[in-house]
């Protein structure tokens, strides 16, 4: 595993390897090629941040630009999936789900159930989420919690280049609709990624760090922040176990419950707004099924109940920080002592 590549290149590689393997895989989205119909180069963009760059050269018409019509675009991906293709559709920013949500939760997610098991809709919707880019309230949201609420969808949140590749390959091979959430602030992070193809099964959490004092469940970019906090805390003798669920739907409940059984203390870190969120979801899971293990109140570290502010000073305050995680861990570790 010596090769290090970027999170965004891991995504590109997953797409590339899967498209090479299976002709029924197609990629579609706004400017996923870039330059269609224009006077300059094709593949001028390869996605707004360059994630799909180079695929056009290899796969030609199997990667398609779209007009700005997300309902038609996503609906077309869903319809193509229901009729034999395996589309990977890019919804540029997760913030834009509001103009095409129907095709996701009322159509793709419900076909199989409503149709009595007769449909198969293997669509992947890749989308970029998260704060940190000074992109303000309409380009910085998390919103994965909304998709997690919806039965029929699977929701994936890779936190590292390794996971990004393996989870995307699984998403593409998976026969159910998958919302694949890529954190924009992780694109430029580097990590070990094998060159060969591999799939990471859904619903299997990653124990990122082992520890006996406090369990931290963290999602997406927050896994890195939790790791930072854990480093600091370790110096003070507090050993954190960090669990990255990797997929919020399905959720690996067992790994979380087993860890809390051992530590007795839980901090959940979710970059999203706090209400009806994964923070509350995991906290309530443990309050119900792991109550007997708990030795302290569950702590939740989340964004506040506000839109994402533009100003850098405010946005930095908005995002859960390693420091906030650290202090939540200390609070729960101190409880009862």
């Amino acid at each position, binding site marked *: 595993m010596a090769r290090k590549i970027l999170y965004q290149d891991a995504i590109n590689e997953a797409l590339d390897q899967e498209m090479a393997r299976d002709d029924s895989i*197609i990629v579609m989205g706004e400017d996923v090629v870039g330059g269609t119909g224009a006077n300059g180069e094709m593949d001028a963009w390869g996605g707004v941040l360059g994630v799909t760059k180079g695929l056009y050269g290899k796969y030609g018409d*199997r990667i*398609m630009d*779209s*007009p700005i*019509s997300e*309902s*038609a*675009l*996503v*609906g*077309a*991906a*869903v*319809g*193509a*999936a*229901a*009729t*034999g*293709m395996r*589309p990977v559709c890019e919804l540029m920013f997760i913030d834009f789900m509001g103009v095409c949500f*129907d*095709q996701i939760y*009322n*159509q793709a997610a419900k*076909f*199989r*159930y*409503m*149709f*009595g*098991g*007769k*449909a*198969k809709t293997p669509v992947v919707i890749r989308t970029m989420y998260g704060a940190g880019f000074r992109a303000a309230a309409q380009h910085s949201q998390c919103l994965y919690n909304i998709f997690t609420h919806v*039965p*029929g969808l*699977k929701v994936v949140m890779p936190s590292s280049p390794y996971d990004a590749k393996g989870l995307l390959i699984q998403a593409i091979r*998976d*026969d*159910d609709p998958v919302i694949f959430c890529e954190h924009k602030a992780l694109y430029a992070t580097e990590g070990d990624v094998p060159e060969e193809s591999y799939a990471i099964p859904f*619903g299997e959490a990653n124990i990122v760090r082992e520890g006996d004092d406090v369990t931290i469940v963290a999602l997406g970019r927050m896994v890195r922040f939790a790791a930072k906090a854990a480093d600091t805390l370790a110096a003070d003798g507090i050993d954190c176990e960090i669990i990255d669920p990797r997929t919020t739907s*399905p959720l690996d409940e067992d790994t979380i419950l087993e860890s809390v059984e051992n530590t007795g203390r839980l901090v959940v870190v979710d970059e999203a707004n706090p209400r009806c969120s994964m923070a509350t979801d995991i906290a309530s899971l443990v309050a119900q099924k792991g109550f007997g293990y708990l030795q302290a109140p569950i702590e939740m570290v989340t964004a506040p109940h506000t839109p994402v502010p533009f100003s850098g000073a405010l946005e930095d305050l908005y995002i859960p920080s390693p420091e906030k995680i650290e202090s939540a861990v200390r609070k729960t570790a101190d409880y009862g002592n």
Partner: protein
Amino acid sequence: MAASLSVEDLLDAYRTMKTIREFEERVHVEFAKGGIPGFVHLYAGEEASATGVCMNLTEDDYIASNHRGHGHCIAKGVEVSGMMAEIYGKGSGTCHGKGGSMHIADLDVGMMGANGIVGGGPPLVCGAALSAKLQGKGGVALAFFGDGASNQGTTFESMNLATVWKLPVVFIAENNGYAEATASSWSVSCKDISTRAEGFGMPGVTVDGHDFFAVHEATKTAVERARAGEGPSLIECKLDRFFGHFEGDNQKYRAPNEVKTIREEKDCIKRFSATITADTDITPDDLAVIDGEVQALIDSAVAKAVADTEPGPETLLTDVYIKY
């Protein structure tokens, strides 16, 4: 007109229209008796549209339908007993009772689903058409939608996308004068829905939706264009529904004798029967035989549906995912 179709085709068309009509008239009666749950939207009166359109299609072509989907399903070849059982919410229903009237689907015969969301279907057929295009076998995909749905953003976007991606799609706007209780003459901002085709770079035509032959002909042209890789078309069928928006609708928004007049003067089946018995060797007796068979089919479908049991409790949790 009738001349361009074989006698067999014409009898098939008659059977389809009649099956839809009897199906709907019967559901209306059974609903009033209280046997059928949920929201039910009947297609009676509009049979020439579904039938005239779908006769141009094979099992490999796809259609997406809307909340008023029974006619589209029957015309596309969904099995009638399964449909009836589905509407009753029974285990032997097309969707094992989990979908109901608004969600009957059978992908095996190219029926992508009725749809409870107005404007839900047009994006989906773009996808089916994309599959067809990439698979290169000449398949086409059609969306049926109402005058109401013709104002939904999803429908407009789909028309644009279909042209831009040059997809083998046909858009069938069934303008029955109303979206629920609201008149299409008010809610649609142009005279004919087909006027909108030009803004989306495709041919558009308005036909008399009570006239099977007009619908069939227009669809034939559009489907041929699509199969030839020349892109999408829009067809508006102007027609009328015999019943309310849904069962239970008081229909006070209609003029007092409106439905009576429509039934008397614009019944597409009467009109079709008159044409084919006049223009071909088909006799009223030939049609009466079919009528009897259709009647028997519907009777048996209702009897089976009534006798069937509801789906077992274990099915509440199945088929949410293929694997979770």
